[in-house]
């Protein structure tokens, strides 16, 4: 009975965690470039049940009944990297990636500088002339110089201009007359990426891929499916409620076994 109680409770806490993830997805239904999360649930390893009901040569010996699961546990959260819808805007500093890939941004917290990755292409030019994201992180790219037939790419660095005029360009963007190519990267294992807030991902071993298609004057919408969210929320709520009913009936059974079966009347 006690074992059954803990099994049902594990179900309840797992459903609660699932609801946490679902409401975060719902909160980010309008966030540019947001990728929805899913909770993976796994059952505990089965345990072997046995009693001593088997009689061999007049002695009670161990009798294997079978295996039993002890409930469910959170296996982890996976991110769904399906592309969201791409929306046209009329701002020259709005970019969207068509397909896989990420933009690279650099964050300097005063002590060290670290690169993060994002799908959120809603950039603007800040008052210092840098192309930055909404959270102020500098977007990295390479300058492009064309000499006749040869094209040279500059070093990877922030994109900066004095007047902040951004226009379209075949290579990516043109800031104050200088062409730049945005640094777009790929990851071998997208599951190694970790969300850190501000629409940024932390990851290691990025592979620079200049063939990733970047669209200017576009933004990628969130890939959260509102209908799935509502359905998942309802099923999670009812599973939570079912677990409650299981716990209540276990409670009643325990009540009977403690107070009625053993009572002296």
């Amino acid at each position, binding site marked *: 009975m006690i074992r059954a109680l803990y099994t049902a409770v*594990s179900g*309840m*806490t*797992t459903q*609660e*965690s699932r*609801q*946490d*993830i679902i*409401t*975060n997805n*719902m*909160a*980010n*239904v*309008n*966030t*540019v470039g947001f990728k929805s*999360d899913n909770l*993976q649930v*796994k059952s*505990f390893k089965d345990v072997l049940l046995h009693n001593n009901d088997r009689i061999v040569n007049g002695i009670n010996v161990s009798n294997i009944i079978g295996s039993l699961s002890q*409930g469910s*546990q*959170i*296996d*982890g*959260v*996976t991110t769904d990297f399906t592309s969201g819808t791409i929306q046209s805007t*009329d*701002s020259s500093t709005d970019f969207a990636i068509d397909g896989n890939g990420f933009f690279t941004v650099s964050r300097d917290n005063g002590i060290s500088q670290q690169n993060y990755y994002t799908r*959120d292409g*809603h950039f*603007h*030019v*800040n*008052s*210092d002339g840098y192309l930055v994201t*909404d*959270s102020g992180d500098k977007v990295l790219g390479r300058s492009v110089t064309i000499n006749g037939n040869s094209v040279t790419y500059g070093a990877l660095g922030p994109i900066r201009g*004095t*007047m*902040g*005029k951004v226009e379209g360009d075949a290579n990516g963007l043109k800031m104050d007359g200088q062409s730049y190519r945005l640094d777009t990267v790929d990851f071998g294992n997208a*599951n190694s990426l*970790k*969300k*850190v*807030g*501000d*629409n940024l991902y932390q990851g290691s071993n990025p592979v620079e891929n200049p063939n990733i298609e970047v669209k200017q004057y576009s933004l990628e919408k969130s890939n959260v499916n509102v209908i799935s*969210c*509502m359905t998942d*929320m309802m099923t999670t*709520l009812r599973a*939570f*409620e079912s677990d*409650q009913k299981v716990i*209540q009936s276990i*409670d009643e059974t325990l009540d009977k076994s403690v107070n009625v079966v053993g009572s002296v009347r």
Partner: protein
Amino acid sequence: MLRILYNSQVAMNAQQDKLDTISNNIANQGTEGYKRTDVQFSDLVYESLSKRGYAYNNNPQTTLQTGTGVRASSHLRDEHQGNLKETDSSTDFAIDGDGYFSVRMNDGTTAYTRDGSFNIDGNGNLVDKNGYFINIDFFKNDGNGNLIDQDGNKTLNKVDNNGNILDANSKSTGINISNIKFSSDNFAVQKDGTVILKENNQNVAVGRINLYTGISAGFSEIGNNLFVAKQGVQVQQAKNSDIIQGFLEGSNVDLGKEMTDLLITQRAFELSSKGMKTADEMWNIANNLKH
């Protein structure tokens, strides 16, 4: 349970923020020179799911974290030009292209504005709606009797030692460079900003209204359609823009876009309110585990 509740709460606040901005844009749809504000969202920090009382498996293939909601992270001015409307007033000006007029405020600081609905004050000066002088680069005597502009280029006229501008026959036009007074029908401004004074049936160029531009994020609003340049922001003359007399620039609010955004934001607000309702139900279920 609290995580579910707080995720929904911050999401509703964020959508509310956007609704406030949308309604401000719609309210200013008729304001001359108004630039609409655009709002985007960012997700918040992620917290670990490995909490006390939760059963979890340490699977290295996945991360064990949940999000904590969303915030409205960027309120940026949309710098697109509004429609130019003809007003027939000789003191109304519109800028076609980038740039701002420069005005001098009462304490001497320079402010910038796109709002070209100017007036003539009692002393014949060109002023804006707040009474601040419009900065005009008047032509000067280069010391040799030539009338030069601010770049040192000679104009068509000469000027005598008393400041009177002379016409082609070296006769005084009646205009003195130290005493230029405007009235509603005695001046015209050309597309490149040259100010022409009409006196005694003569048209004489007396100065130039310049346009100034810089990184748009470097200008901060101070109200009354005025902007000031932040410290360290480079402000240059805008060479590619025209000044159109007799026109005003409307707001750049696109009602179709604002209404669409309003619908989307309202529904997102409603979605998160369902999340909050579910949190309440789940907590109720947990509370009633034991009757």
